């Protein structure tokens, strides 16, 4: 067994040597610059993990498709039941990212276009749309798990406001709304974990975000918005 091991090492060394020879002229000419460049890049590479914005995408992940969901017509009801949609997210998380721990930040936008004058009545706003994380799972395996931030760990469809009006909500009250996400906010956090049985290519974090709006006599019109989830270290 030892003999075979040596043979392999020799082959590798030979390959490396050939490579150096092949590219020798180039390296000779830029040798001095290469060291300086390497030092500069090394400095960036040290800074990058601590910047809080870096994240390692899993290999071979296709571009993430944008999910589109519709509430349809939000017609006032009688039982105080809100209209709701669920937006599924699948975020590729690399093994390196998972091992170091990561967080998921959500940022949203919202717009309402009236079709009739408000005439003194209420129009739907981002604060009327309750937002909760209803499920989190991943294929990272090991001891990886993500904790939902305070205020987002609830099902917005379970909220019933007295009299069919918008409940007093907000992340601070334990019931986050879309308004909480307008400036961007952390909604999930996974602490450092051991690689364990984690796949070498990383895995996928699946997050279901549910949005609910009470069906009220809001000003007629249409509304739209986005929620973006960003995984970062």
């Amino acid at each position, binding site marked *: 067994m030892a003999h075979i091991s040596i043979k392999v090492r020799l082959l590798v060394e030979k390959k490396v040597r050939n490579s150096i020879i092949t590219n020798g002229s180039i390296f000779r000419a830029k040798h001095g610059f290469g060291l300086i460049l390497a030092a500069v890049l*090394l400095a960036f590479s040290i800074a990058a*993990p601590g910047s809080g914005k870096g994240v390692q995408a899993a290999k071979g992940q296709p571009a993430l498709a944008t999910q*589109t969901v519709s509430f349809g017509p939000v017609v006032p009801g009688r039982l105080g039941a809100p209209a709701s949609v669920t937006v599924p997210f699948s*975020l590729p998380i690399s093994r390196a*990212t998972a091992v170091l721990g990561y967080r998921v930040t959500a940022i949203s936008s919202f717009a309402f276009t009236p079709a009739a004058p408000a005439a*003194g009545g209420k129009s739907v706003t981002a604060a009327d749309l309750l937002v909760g994380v209803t499920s989190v799972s991943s294929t990272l395996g090991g001891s990886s798990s993500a904790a939902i931030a305070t205020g987002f760990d609830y099902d917005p469809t379970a909220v019933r406001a007295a009299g*069919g009006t918008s409940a007093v909500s907000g992340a601070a009250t334990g019931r986050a709304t879309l308004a909480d996400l307008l400036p961007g906010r952390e909604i999930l956090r996974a602490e450092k974990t051991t690689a364990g049985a984690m796949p070498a290519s990383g895995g996928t974090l699946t997050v279901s975000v549910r949005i609910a709006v009470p069906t009220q*006599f809001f000003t007629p019109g249409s509304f739209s918005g986005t929620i973006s*989830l960003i995984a970062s270290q």
Partner: protein
Amino acid sequence: MKRLGILLSAAAVLAILPGIVLAQGTSGTGTFGGTVPTTFSIANTSNGSLATALGTFSTLTIGRNVLSTPTPLSFRLRSNAAYKLTAQVGSLVGITDGGPSGVSTTLQAIKTGDIGFGFTTAVDRSGLSVVGGGTSPTRTDSIVNGFDVIAGWPSVTTGHTPAFTKTLHDIYAADTQIMSGDRISASGDNSSGDNFLTVTVGIATLPQYMAPGDFSGTVMFTIAASGT
């Protein structure tokens, strides 16, 4: 030395690769949308469907210039836009459409024109989620001329059908606007206890020596966008 330098360079580049990769972001975006349609609602005073008696005369006992005025009907209106309320009478049984019975030498049977119809109580705008409502309401809801009998039914002096300003004859077989106004509900849904107008309508007739028999009919109320 040169090889050492090259190796150092290569090592440095390898060392920075994770950093470069780490600068990439993993993100996903979901978009959502919906519409808030123009919505109008009529409900009974329990927020249920309005399907009840507008007025039951029971047996019309003939007296002396005394109108029969069954208990009027109250119901709730909600809307998120300017509205109009219409009424239409139909499905007549034992009664025909026509003007009021007057002095005649021939036998008379009750007709729609013998039954007065109108708002018998001021519109209740006191809801705290009514636009322009509340304890000191500022909103205006216009009752079409003639349908306002809040001050009372006309007096009867001749023993014949009095001069009702509006009768069921005026709303027969056609949606007839009886009231209109601006957006009613500031917010809330159909279970809210403070976002509606309460209107009360009633009917009245004078028991007279008309052809005996039972009669009935249906009055359909509709709330819709004003201007439609």
